[in-house]
């Protein structure tokens, strides 16, 4: 290769680099597209791509095109940190959308803090994450349980049994159940924490019968734990004891659970596909056109959709995709007309005010919404975490 050719190709390459740098805003996405958690990750990723397509079809962002750098974390924590670093060091992203489990969020949060890149975590979780660069668009345990426990005590009675997975989502949720039970004149008469691999729930069912509760708060994680609901119904307890949950349906468990076991189960979340609003109709129409209607949309997907749009709104407000002004814009309290109602970023806690829905399982593997609590604040996070007055705060608060 002669000298001119080399210089020519360097010029060509650099001109290409320059043009891409001007025409694109890059965002990163790390979700579990394969492995045990892809029950959630595929939908989160689909929602991200749909949101980006939606923004690009409406003229892009500040006249630029949004480009996604997507990674498959394969349900492994080590992949999260690896790809988070790649996205920062190589891809030069302006924002990151990633993670399902709290452990994945905690693994990558420091990377985006150090790089000063806004990071959006979009899943219902136990609550309490507090970091200048981190924004949470899912609902927190206290946000959901505050309204659910009050409602359930009124509906079923004051004796509560807790069946929860044996890690921080379960134990922190159990703490909130105890607190809201006391606030509403009810009591927790028994609780059982279960490993995620348990498939035989007969000991738990015996203990529930011994404790004689009015309702059970069941927090089964993943499809394996749907067996609990089948066994609960087959034991003949469903007619005597109510079942409520903050995460039933978050992984489309209602599709797996048989109609006999699923009818009448109470679930509370920030989104159900059956939410009745023009925004949701439009959103589901777009989703079905692209991904089909075979699998219902889960709340985690809508949380991602909301995250991308909220970030885009902040970029528009800031007039740039640079991190510091975008974070400032986000903290100014951006609202978005979401499929699940109007959602608003709380400037101090970086969590969302949003509707919490209570829905009842029907006999067609779906949900009927029976009550909507509008604009519920993430009060625990607001109380503990104020990143506007204390921007250096980095903590995962636990009650």
């Amino acid at each position, binding site marked *: 290769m002669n000298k001119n050719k080399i210089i020519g190709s360097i010029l060509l390459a650099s001109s290409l680099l320059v043009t891409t740098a001007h025409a694109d805003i890059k965002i990163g996405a790390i979700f579990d597209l394969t492995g045990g958690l*892809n029950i959630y990750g595929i939908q989160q990723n689909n929602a991200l791509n749909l949101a980006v397509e939606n923004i690009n079809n409406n003229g892009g962002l500040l006249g630029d095109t949004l480009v996604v750098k997507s990674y498959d974390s394969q349900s492994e924590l080590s992949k999260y940190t690896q790809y988070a670093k790649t996205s920062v060091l190589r891809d030069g992203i302006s924002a990151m959308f990633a993670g399902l489990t709290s452990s994945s969020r905690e693994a990558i949060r420091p990377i985006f803090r150090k790089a000063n890149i806004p990071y959006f975590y979009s899943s219902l979780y136990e609550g309490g994450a507090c970091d200048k660069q981190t924004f949470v668009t899912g609902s927190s345990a206290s946000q959901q349980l505050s309204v659910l426990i009050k409602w359930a005590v009124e509906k079923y009675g004051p004796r509560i049994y807790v069946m929860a997975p044996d890690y921080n989502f379960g134990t922190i949720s159990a703490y909130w159940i105890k607190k809201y039970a006391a606030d509403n004149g009810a009591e927790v008469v028994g609780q059982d924490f279960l490993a995620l*691999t348990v498939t035989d729930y007969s000991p738990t069912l015996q203990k529930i019968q011994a404790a004689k509760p009015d309702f059970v708060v069941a927090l089964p994680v993943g499809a*394996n734990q749907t067996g609990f609901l089948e066994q609960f119904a*087959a*034991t*003949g307890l469903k007619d005597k004891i109510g079942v409520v949950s903050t995460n039933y349906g978050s992984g489309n468990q209602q599709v797996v659970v048989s109609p006999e076991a699923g009818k009448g189960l109470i679930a509370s979340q920030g989104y159900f596909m059956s939410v009745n609003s023009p925004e949701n109709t439009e959103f589901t129409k777009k989703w079905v056109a692209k991904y089909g209607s075979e699998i219902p949309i889960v709340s985690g997907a809508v949380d991602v959709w909301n995250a991308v749009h909220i970030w885009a709104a902040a970029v528009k407000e800031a007039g740039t995709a640079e991190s510091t002004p975008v974070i400032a814009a986000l903290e100014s309290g951006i609202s978005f007309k979401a499929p699940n109602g109007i959602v608003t970023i709380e400037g101090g806690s970086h969590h969302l005010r949003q509707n919490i829905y209570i829905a009842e399982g029907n006999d067609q593997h779906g949900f009927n919404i029976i009550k909507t609590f509008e604009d519920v604040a993430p009060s625990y996070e607001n109380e503990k975490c104020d990143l506007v007055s204390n921007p250096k705060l980095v903590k995962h608060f636990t009650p």
Partner: protein
Amino acid sequence: MELDYLASVLVSSLSSASILLIATIGLAVVFGLMGVINLAHGEFLMIGAYSALTVTQLGLPYVLSIPVAVLVTMAIGAIVEVLIISRLYGRIFDTMLATWGLSMVLYQLAVLIFGTVSPGIGMPQYNIQIGDYNLAGYPLLMIVVAIAMLVFVYLLMTKTIYGMKARASIQEPEMAQAIGIDSTRTNTLTFAVGCGLAGFAGAVLLPIVPATPSMGFAFVIKSFLTVVVAGPVTLTGSALAAIGLGGGSSITASFMTSVAGDVFFFLVTAIILWLYPLGISAKWRHKL
């Protein structure tokens, strides 16, 4: 403690032990008889569950879907034996790696074919009452199923010509070939039988454990430990280990917490293997 609670705990722990035994027998045959550690055992359970589910969705009664599930898993098991396992006899760690890889492939295939969620078939809404306590009927039926499976495998391996050939091919492969037994084909069949038993387990447990791509993970660890604790006298040993470990952990879970039940399982396993490194049946005179 009331008597009715005690009685219901005992009965339900027996059904817990039976469920563990049902999930384990296929592994016991493959590991106990052939010395092959099949880390994809859980995935064969999953294949059985999905086969039964698919057949039921096509309109066949659930009971008839079970033999279909057995045939499907046996066929896949035979293919796996010919393509992978038969090349690795005597190389125990290579077999573990290969079957572990296979389990990941089968898992991801299930996701691609069936998606991450499929409708379950539900459990028969039948239950019995002991005093104040209700017990679901279907898990209790598993006690009968476990006994039937044990008897079937025992008779298959001791009373049939295939059974004698199978044991001969594994224990004395050269001698078996010398007297005219086609040990290659016999081994293929034995591995297929083990997989078929796993498929049967997945199908028969389908009402209790819904079919999901990841369902194998839930079973494979405890099944595997049960077989290791059982030792060389595969069948009787596995039955005893399942009752002791599965039943014991279920009783512990009933009186304490489910976590305590799991702790019991793994702690007792560790202590037994410390005292009897070759399994509880290492010094027994029985063969099965």
